[in-house]
């Protein structure tokens, strides 16, 4: 039975609705820095940056963290500066 055959008539909108419901609980991602209006990300604030370099010490990607591109660049630069000062690791195993 294909999706279109299932309901027919008035219920033709059903599959779409189910699809929507499945993802309803997913919270919309937002840029933490835009939200808090942070314009400058300090490379010395390692407690903040540690949240962006979990476990393997790789920089958290935008697609997961939801950070906007403008702030992601700032995070990237801050993390790299902190790494050269041995405040943050390059890798961890």
């Amino acid at each position, binding site marked *: 039975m294909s999706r279109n055959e299932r309901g027919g008539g008035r219920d033709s909108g059903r599959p779409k609705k189910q699809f929507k419901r499945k993802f309803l609980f997913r919270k919309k991602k937002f840029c933490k820095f835009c939200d808090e209006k942070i314009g400058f990300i300090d490379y010395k604030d390692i407690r903040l940056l540690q949240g962006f370099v*979990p476990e393997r010490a790789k920089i958290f990607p935008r697609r997961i963290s939801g950070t906007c591109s403008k702030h992601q660049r700032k995070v990237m630069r801050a993390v790299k500066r902190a790494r050269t000062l041995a405040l943050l690791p390059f890798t961890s195993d």
Partner: protein
Amino acid sequence: MLQYETIFVTDPNLTDEEVDVIVKLVEQLTVAAGGKVIKTEKWGKRRLAYPVEHREEGIYVLMTLECPTQHVKEIDRRYRMNDRILRHLTVRVEDESQLGPSPMMKPRPADRDEIPADPMLAP
């Protein structure tokens, strides 16, 4: 003249006096170049994120300067010549918050594990 922020990490075995000598030197060089020191912060001994020259710790010192652009080159050159400095970085001051006390000077939570996880980064 521009404002710069300079950090250096020294050998952990240096005494306070020896670190002060380096701080003084940077100060003197800056004043001689026609600049001034805005603030000096000693973070003290910190664990390095990775070993540098077989050392697991380092003494961190942060200084904020107002000096001519050319002076940065000179400071960097001095840092490189000094083999007791493990790491150094000099960058432009981008934000006014950098002129005040740095995040390092804020009191630390008792234990790192007790910091609540960022809800945004939770899986």
